[in-house]
């Protein structure tokens, strides 16, 4: 398997997706018109989701240990099971061409799969960390896979052979997420205590470290720490590190806290903007950047089922739009064309939203 090559010859998998529809006139992006265009059902809560680089598939982890794939243009019948982990998968990523999918398991393993197989079997299961593997990300050049886990380590693996290349030692508590900078030379990580580190990929050295303590809480009564990133990405221009999580933990054991997004100025390595929703008790589970200059975040409330999508402009206090979800979100991803959002939910549903006005032309609505 080659790494970076665009593999146009990828076979059309027998996954129930229809041939690509003929191009249709498209409505412009208008988030105030955001609406559901697809709902894929599963009977077990989902844990995360990602859309592959080709925009064909959405992959989601579930609490039944499996990863599922749906064709974005298909329906429930396109559901394909990726069985091989012995615990939950909370993070996944793709090779640049989308041919491979990498899964981070709480069974201490990283799974490597052919993304498009009709009957997927793991190509390889890597004993990656002592304890949960919490996060995986593929490097911009597609040659490296970064993972982090409950042994407090960040590890770099070579693609595709899965050999360990580098270990980053420095986090004192669980690193929750690690992402490559778009320049491919650096890696950012975020741990339970809100410690953010900047690593040199070449040398494995920790270059910088700052804290975002407000995204962590110590519950005096229960003597427990709560914090960490629930999602983390770089902006496409590499200037901003965007983190989703929580703040103002008042009762860790009841999950009383507020959702937070943190924007870190990567060059200065300092907090640029903090956003929290004071009216909403809960967690921010996912965040994406949109090229039109806004962020989308997904959230889950402390109680009830009023999951949320927030649309906000960096620097502004209030979202300019929000959409109530049918249940708690567990993540968020955006299609390569930046027109659709996928949200994995606690009730097992994976919902796809379109950030435009609905098209009335027959054939565009996939909800039928």
């Amino acid at each position, binding site marked *: 398997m080659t790494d970076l090559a665009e593999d146009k010859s990828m076979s059309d998998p027998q996954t129930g997706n229809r041939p690509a529809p003929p191009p249709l006139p498209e409505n412009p992006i208008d988030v105030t018109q955001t609406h559901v265009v697809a709902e894929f059902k599963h009977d077990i809560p989902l844990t995360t989701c990602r859309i592959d680089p080709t925009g064909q598939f959405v992959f989601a982890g579930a609490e039944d240990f499996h990863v599922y794939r749906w064709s974005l243009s298909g329906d429930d019948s396109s559901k394909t099971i990726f069985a091989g982990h012995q615990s939950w998968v909370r993070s996944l990523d793709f090779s640049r061409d989308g041919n491979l999918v990498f899964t981070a398991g*709480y*069974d201490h393993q990283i799974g490597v799969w052919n993304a498009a197989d009709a009957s997927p079997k793991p190509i390889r299961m890597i004993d990656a960390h002592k304890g*949960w593997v919490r996060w995986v990300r593929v490097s911009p050049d597609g040659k490296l896979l970064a993972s982090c886990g409950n042994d407090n380590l960040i590890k770099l693996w070579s693609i595709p052979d899965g050999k360990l290349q580098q270990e980053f030692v420095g986090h004192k508590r669980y690193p929750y997420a690690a992402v490559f900078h778009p320049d491919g030379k650096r890696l950012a990580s975020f741990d339970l205590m809100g410690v953010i580190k900047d690593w040199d990929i070449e040398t494995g050295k920790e270059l910088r470290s700052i804290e975002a303590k407000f995204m962590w809480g110590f519950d005096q009564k*229960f*003597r427990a720490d*709560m914090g960490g990133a629930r999602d983390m990405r770089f902006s496409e221009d590499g200037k901003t590190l965007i983190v989703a999580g929580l703040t103002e933990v008042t009762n*860790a*054991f009841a999950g009383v806290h507020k959702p937070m997004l943190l924007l870190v100025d990567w060059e200065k390595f300092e907090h640029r903007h903090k956003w929290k929703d004071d009216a909403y008790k809960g967690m921010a589970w996912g965040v994406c950047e949109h090229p039109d200059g806004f962020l989308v975040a997904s959230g889950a409330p*402390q109680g009830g089922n009023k999951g949320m999508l927030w649309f906000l402009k960096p620097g502004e206090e209030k979202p300019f739009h929000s959409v109530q979800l049918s249940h708690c979100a567990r993540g968020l991803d955006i299609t390569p064309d930046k027109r659709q959002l996928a949200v994995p939910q606690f009730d097992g549903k994976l919902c796809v939203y379109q950030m435009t006005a609905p098209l009335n032309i027959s054939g565009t609505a996939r909800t039928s």
Partner: protein
Amino acid sequence: MRREIGCNRIDHEVSRRSFVAGSAAGAAAVGGLLTPAQAEAVKSGQKRILQVFLQGGVSQFESWDPKPGTKYGGPFRSIPTSVPGTHISELLPHTAQRMHLLSIVRSVDLKTNDHRIGRLRLEKGRTTGEFPYVGAVASKYLAPPNPPLPGYLHITTRGLEDNTNAFLGAQHAQLKLLGVNAPENLARPAGINEEAAQRRNEFRRLANERFAGRGGQPAFTEAFDSSFEMARRLMKRKSLFEQEPSAKDVERYGSHPFGVRCILARELLNNGATCVKVTHHGYDTHAENFNFHLEQLDEFDKTFCMLLDDLHDSGMLESTLVLVYSEFGRTPKLNQRYGRDHWGASFSVALGGCGIVPGAVVGSTNADGTEVAKREVRGGHLFHTYFRALGLDTSANHDITGRPVPIGDPAAAPIEELLA
């Protein structure tokens, strides 16, 4: 009342040995392992209890009764233990290696999801009413006549006020130690030396003697006297609370609060305490159940095992009943905060040591862990089991005047298959 002294009857010894004989360690244990401490314990007939209370309700799924890959099993895997066929959660790797010293009851149903009621039902072995806690009963019937320390010591962080001794004397109430801090006011105020303390106490004693001569309600004045006597004993043992744990102990037990509390618990047991309860807080995981159990059980597992090893190696485990319990377990169903809520209907308790068949698993829950499948056990059954294992006839009445009160709930019975 009738008291069976000791649980070292020959038939018990034989059965326990034959049970353990499967392992080489068990075979080696036959004969010649009596340490001086154990010899002393056997000689004195003193039995002890170590209670490790996982406050808030440890999840049975993440500890003693894992159900990986089932509907509510959660993300953790199960691992084999030193007892063939018995698996526990991967969060307890050290305990797993010592499972041959412990047994599990997997079918506890307390019929409550309330912290306080669950605690009371397990501590009192009764569903309702004013009855003494396990520790108070131990203090009353297991402590020697002039115990060197108060009979029932509880190392904890927070104070939940309970009437722990009920109708037993106040001297059997729990004495709460806030963490490893010595009880408050253990040190003499500056300016009062030993001589002055004795002198003024003698004056006090004389006054008490005169007053006691008035008769009437000796129980009151005696309880009052005994509180001063207990205070005096604690002051004499002040060093127990002051000595810094050795570097080796800290390395083995951990430097976190639970670690140093367990070191203190060991010292208290070594120095004649009858019941020591150590509370490990932080299991009420209505949110982030898995992350919190990772943290909490990581602390518990190794530390508890070090304490268990020390009891075992010194021979004291033979005369010490070890209990690991919570006021209830946690719901099978996960809530939307990755939490598990209160669940008293099907959860587990672990126990071992004095008088308990080691390596056993009693009862079971159904495939998804939503209810007891076999051998329902309630607080009363456990209470009977504890004290029968310690050699007390739980069907006998309490040693109090006025009214006959059976020690154990007459509506419950011991779990015979756990009694060595």
